[in-house]
């Protein structure tokens, strides 16, 4: 019953996935599992059998950062950085489902990713900014 989190960090050396609480509360271990955001500390390894997994190391396209990552840099969305990998994934996951969310929708989507440093304001700004760089379907 080992955790997917440990397999990712220890066996695959994907240390961008962080352990902040081991209780599924902080979201620092967030990853995408078959297209859905989950807390990897709560996934038994057997449930990841043949799954498609995206960690924060997989968000950028080589040297080219995702719009969310670039916006985090511009707007100060990362301070100590420990929540950032999970927070970036949560934001990316949101924008994949909803390319132009309101601030209220951003707050709801990120409610499972705790940040102790920023007070979230810069993060909301970053995600709103990243939306502006996402093509608008109706255009």
């Amino acid at each position: 019953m080992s955790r997917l989190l440990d397999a990712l960090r220890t066996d695959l050396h994907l240390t961008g996935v962080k352990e902040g609480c081991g209780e599924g509360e902080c979201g620092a271990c967030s990853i995408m599992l078959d297209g859905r955001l989950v807390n990897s500390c709560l996934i038994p390894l057997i449930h990841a059998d043949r799954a498609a997994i995206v960690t924060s190391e997989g968000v950028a396209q080589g040297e080219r950062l995702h719009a969310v990552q670039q916006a985090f840099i511009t707007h100060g969305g990362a301070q100590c950085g420990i929540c950032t990998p999970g927070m970036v994934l949560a934001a990316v996951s949101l924008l994949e489902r909803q390319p132009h969310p309101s601030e209220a929708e951003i707050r709801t989507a990120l409610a499972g990713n705790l940040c102790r440093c920023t007070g979230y304001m810069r993060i909301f700004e970053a995600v709103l900014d990243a939306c502006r760089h996402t093509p608008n379907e109706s255009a």
Partner: protein
Amino acid sequence: MHIGQPTPRKEARSKVTGQARYVDDLAFPGMLHGVTVRSPSPRGLIRDIRYEPGIPWDELTVVTAADIPGANVVALIADDQPCLADDRVNHAEEPVVLLAHRDRSLLEEARRRVTIEIEPLPPVYTIDEALAATTVIWGEDNIFKTYLVSHGDVESASAGADAVVEGEYETDAQEQLYIEPNGMLAVARREDGVTVWGSMQCPYYIHRALLRLFGLPAERIRVVQMETGGGFGGKEEYPSIIAGHAALLSWKSGRPVKIVYDRAEDMVATTKRHPSRTRHRTAVTKDGRLVAMDIDFVIDGGAYCTLSPVVLSRGTIHATGPYYCPNVRVRGTAVATNVPPHGAFRGFGAPQSIFALERHLDRVAHAIGIAPDELRRKNFIQTGQTSAVGQVMREPMDMPALLDRALALSDYHAKRVRFDAANASAKMKKGIGFAAFMHGAGFTGSGEDHLASVVTVEATPEGRVRVLSSCTEIGQGTITVFSQIAADALGIDVDAIEVVQPDTAVVPDSGPTVASRTCMVVGKLVESAAMGLRATLESGAGGISDFPAACRNHIQQFGALRASSQYRPTAGVRWDDERYQGDAYGTYAWAVYVAEVTFDTTTFEVSLDDFVAVQEVGRVINPVLATGQIEGGVAQGIGWTLFERVVWREGRMANAQMTNYIMPTSMDLPPIRVFFEERPYAEGPGGAKGIGELPMDGAAPAIANAVSYAAGVNVSHIPITPESLMALMEIPVA
């Protein structure tokens, strides 16, 4: 010009791509994991330690106090705290036995199979029990430290006053809750000495602690800071303990050892904000002028002294706030109880005493029938006046203007009128409240003189400049701010600056990363060292129109290009340690915060609708980073005020899970609107004052004042819970 620019955080890219390396991301060949076996009892004598069957004990490394090569002490202020409990324990979760093994899972099972048998002694849990000293658990009277600030004659001044208002205010413990728990990785061998890598704020504090623990010479101890996932004071002094533990296990096993706490252990065993109790007795004239302030400020330090005297000092000095009062008496006391020692947390005593003061002044205003802002205006300290500790406030400050601006930005007066009209019949009652305060930056009094911090800058032949300082990046922006300051001083681009990883083998002791001093005090040393390096180049032939070339030439000629700067006492700033008087801080940042709340009378819940934070900070070095510091500090203050509650059972935190110790999520915070003013401080880089802790001081009293208004009650205790508000509403307001 880089100062004043929103220069992007230099290490942001590594953080947003998951490349940043924190201690738990490190693994060395042959590394063992370590765990700590802790006391189940809050106080008693250790009678036996049993290693129960079912574990291959011969495979594990076991360390107890007997294995400590040097002194069994966590070096800090008083030498009262052992690194490992020896014959007795003084708090629950006190470390007793260390275990190491390569299988982390087996270690957890082994940890459960160590039985520490304790013959209990009666514990002390509260401030009152400690002060009564019926049971003495520390020293002669359970008192770590006292201070007395005294000015004028409070007794006779109060006797003749128009009104005297009393109040008692309490604040509970708060857990720092950095999202990265404490962790250390140690390699300790008799041949080489001790090296530790880890999550920390103060490499040289750990260095000093390991020196004592191992009895080795200074050059055989090396401390390296890894990327640190939040500190807030919780990684100021505590890391010395976990570093010592990892090093002891490594010393005995001969292998690298990594100890990383899980969340439950970090919450239950490490330091928290000191709980406090403040009693105010305030005499005023009928039109609101302060005549006398008599304040009794007590903090609970837990089982060992740690930093309590310093927390007490700051809390005592800030207890009278940004006001002038001719008669003042502040008695500060730090007491011992049998709980895990409390320690540094952003604000460091000031949030506690400022909460009491600003809540109390609203009550004083109410008692004499004048508006809360009127009362403040009548009493704000002005340039040229003397503070409670005898500091002549030489710098320009304008609290009335700051107050005006904050109240205007929050539409305070109009809202009060609207709320007054609507609240009587509303199910959702509205409230608005403010707090006026200041925060002294840097170490108190002669602290900076004693630290005598040093910064070195050195150039490479390619024209890159390395900044060597022991101040750590913990999310507040040290690396970026130092780079901006150095780039301006040298006239080069910020990308040419490298702030090196704090490593005691490489960087000088610039003092700890605490007390809002990193930018203001150490940043100034960065500036002057960089200016020194520039002056060296300018004095050479050829000048520095081409900086890299100038560096290359100089290094070719002289071998190295380096300059250091050491802190020197500021002229005219004098503090008397003995009499506890004088210039407490080189400068203060000044602020007014306003909170608007909705109080739901159906569920007694409070939600925040708006928060305005206005502060005068000398100079904003980086607006994005500075705004982030204020927003984050306000968020932590909101957490402390409305959500975060430590549930104590028999001297132990019972709700040591993030599911039960509640910090705000993205849905719990209002818009936090931040505004800066700048009156340059001559001794700060570019005029900057320290701001890291300032925001922690204002949220609690502003919110408490707003809630008191909305609910029509007297809030006097932090945290404010719906349950406590429900209980308060059953009491008629005095």
